[in-house]
């Protein structure tokens, strides 16, 4: 859909709906997604470019670990 809409710059994140900034309580991942998006404003070379970012499985595992630590 992003390819059809052609926003000037877009970051593709592999998360399910409702979770576009990663997983709950994973502050570092949330910050990284924003930081990469803001940096892409500067580094994008052409309109319509899409930046692929992160692996959902990795972040989900890290997020589960963070929540486990919060509860212990």
């Amino acid at each position, binding site marked *: *859909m992003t390819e*059809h*809409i*052609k*926003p*000037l*710059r877009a970051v593709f994140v592999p998360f*399910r*709906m*409702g*979770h*576009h*900034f*990663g*997983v*709950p*309580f994973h*502050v570092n991942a*949330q*910050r990284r997604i*924003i*930081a990469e*998006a*803001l940096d892409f*404003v*500067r580094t*994008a070379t*052409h*309109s*319509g470019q899409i930046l692929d970012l992160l692996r959902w499985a990795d972040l989900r595992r890290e997020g589960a670990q963070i929540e486990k630590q919060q509860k212990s």
Partner: protein
Amino acid sequence: MSAIGSMITKSDVVPLAPMRRPLADSRLTFVSTAGVQPIGTLPFDVVHPVGDYTFRRVPSSATPADLEIHQLKYPTDGAHRDLNVIFPIERLQELARENVVGGLTQDFFSFIGYNMDPDLLERTLAEDLARAVADEQADLALLAPA
């Protein structure tokens, strides 16, 4: 132009708008389709058959406890535990405090993504929202779907 499997197509390409100043001097705004709104403001009409073409202002200084979600079209289980997963207001506040960005607009903006009339959306919500963002003198905008 048409595309199999999608109603959404756009043949024109908007040229890249270059940054006018360094990020650390730029005012950032955030626009979201998450249906996040301050508690006590008029709830989005989440059951209207063609959607709700209004937006809400969300003070950029708000805390997650000040906000609620009116949106039925995406899973909110993560957002109800940590709003930042869909509306990263605390992360954006941190970036401003750390001078990664020059500052935040006074308000962020939120609407619901369920809008079934793209022409109406373009004529009303998109125009109204673009005007509001411009009035906030934003240098750049982070847009996020939900």
